[in-house]
């Protein structure tokens, strides 16, 4: 397997002309089938790698599908298309979910998924924008993605571009002070083409958020920082697409979708089990999980 060419983020690709804008006519039922497939990928790839973060990847699956299949303007054959909507994965440990989604959209071959975390793979343990087509930001050190997304949105404003910027954060990640620096700044700069989505699965490595570091009252915090807040069932693709439609109409302030999710969603023994935040399933656990995800 060869590494993709090193990216030059400011370059305009010659492919822009011929590459198609991604579109999907998938029904809700079909997207739910895709969700199951992505979950199988996540379990299989982390299982094969022997390490990784299945829990917070499984919780983000429907969010990624709603974005990549129904909301984002993007061209899998031209990841640097200047007019693309940007998706910034701030919770970089959910890389397996993003990689599976990108492969499903055609950014790279599905077989690459099985190289996760191996030497010279284009799929690093946490997202690395220098090697993976479609990854906008190197992440893994939590708390930086929302700030980065503000910069991307401000550049769009200065360049009179119409693109929108979506940043996916973990709820545990919101312990980081920088998230709230960014929340303050986004409202101050009136960055209305920025949407934050919080994968609100309620858990972090050491357990439930409420025991480790309480975020309550979470929606009120965002409101107090000047954001429009919409809550949605983070495993309901119709609810997510509806929320994402709604935020498009908001002018003059940023919006956050708090997507209520379940860590480890879709695999009974991983659900709400913080053990699987950063531990890969064993071979036997992979088998059991795949059976549940048939």
């Amino acid at each position, binding site marked *: 397997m060869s590494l993709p060419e090193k990216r030059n983020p400011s370059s305009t690709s010659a492919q822009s002309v011929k590459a198609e804008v991604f579109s999907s006519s998938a029904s809700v039922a079909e997207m739910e089938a895709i969700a199951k497939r992505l979950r199988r990928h996540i379990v299989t790839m982390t299982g094969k790698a022997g390490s990784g973060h299945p829990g917070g990847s499984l919780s983000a699956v429907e969010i990624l599908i709603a974005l990549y299949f129904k909301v984002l303007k993007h061209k899998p054959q031209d990841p640097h298309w200047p007019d693309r909507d940007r998706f910034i994965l701030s919770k970089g440990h959910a890389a397996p979910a993003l990689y599976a989604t990108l492969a499903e959209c055609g950014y790279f071959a599905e077989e690459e998924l099985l190289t996760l975390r191996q030497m010279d793979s284009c799929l690093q343990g946490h997202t690395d924008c220098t090697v993976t087509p479609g990854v906008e*930001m*190197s992440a893994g*050190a939590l708390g930086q993605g929302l*700030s*980065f997304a503000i910069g991307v949105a*401000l550049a769009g404003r200065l360049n009179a571009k119409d693109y929108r910027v979506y940043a996916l954060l973990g709820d545990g990640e919101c312990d980081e002070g920088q998230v709230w*620096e960014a929340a303050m700044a986004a409202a101050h700069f009136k960055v209305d083409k920025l949407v934050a989505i919080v994968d609100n699965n309620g858990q972090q490595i050491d357990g439930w958020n409420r025991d480790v570091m309480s975020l309550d009252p979470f929606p009120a915090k965002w409101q107090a920082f000047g954001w429009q807040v919409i809550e949605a069932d983070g495993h309901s693709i119709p609810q997510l697409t509806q929320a994402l439609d709604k935020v498009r109409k908001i002018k003059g302030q940023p919006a956050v979708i708090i997507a209520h999710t379940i860590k480890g969603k879709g695999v009974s023994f991983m659900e709400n089990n913080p053990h699987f935040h950063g531990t890969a399933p064993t071979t036997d656990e992979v088998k059991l999980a795949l059976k549940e995800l048939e």
Partner: protein
Amino acid sequence: MAEEFYLRQAYGETLVELGGENPDVVVLDADLSRSTRTRLFADKFPERFFNCGIAEQNMVSIAAGLASSGKIPFASTFAVFVPGRCFDQIRMSIAQPRLNVKLVVGHGGISVGEDGTSHQSIEDLALIGSLPGFTVIVPADAIETAQAVRAVAAYLGPCYIRLCRPKAPLVYDQSYRFKLGKAVEMRQGGDATIIAIGLMVKAALEAAESLKGEGIDCRVLNMSTLKPIDEAAIIQAAAETGAIVTAEEHLEHGGLGSAVARVVARHKPVPMEFIALKDTYAKSGKPAELFERYGLTAKDIERAVRSAIKRK
């Protein structure tokens, strides 16, 4: 006596010129725009200026986002807050993806003076210099500052420029041409070489002049591009003069002295001495008093040169 100018004033004025020449130049500050002089750009191009408030980590990551979208962001605050406070943000948001962010920081070193330890950045060159791919520049005067700012704007990749708070005496005239990555021979000499950065370049020239009276003929190099360092100039100096003294307003660990010593040890071992802060924080005081207390004067350089020559 040489005329003295603020390096940061030269920075602010150059930013305004660059802003007029290139619409992609944008500027960020963290509530210090009057000190850093980014205010000059803000007044002229308010739509391209983002005051991020007292939130340096956020500022640095926003700058990365702007750079990833083709902008040329200059982000400024005091050296002590960048990279100290934002090391992880610089590491992951800027250095790893090699984004085109320019961190231009003021108030480097102990010449900050009376504000004391909290504001005296003496570790910044070690921190920023440790990051793969970062270009690090410490200009010696206002003329070099203006040119270095232009050079980093034209260069694609992450850069750090460290400026000092007080006015600095000119060591160049307008005919000077800064070249990224090239040491400048300020004075020829064959008995020893003094390699200096920032305010210490002037002190090095004074030391060389004084040593001439003792019959010691010193070469003086301004190593304004600290990284990537001009290895050829160092090797040549070691080979031709046989002794090297480095001088910087920074800790001995991880700054100019360390960088030069790596080159010397690998290619042409010769006796070296280091004029720098010795594993200590400084205190409040006037810059000149602090330089005296912590061994950063021309006289200290002279002693170091004699000592290095003795060990040849």
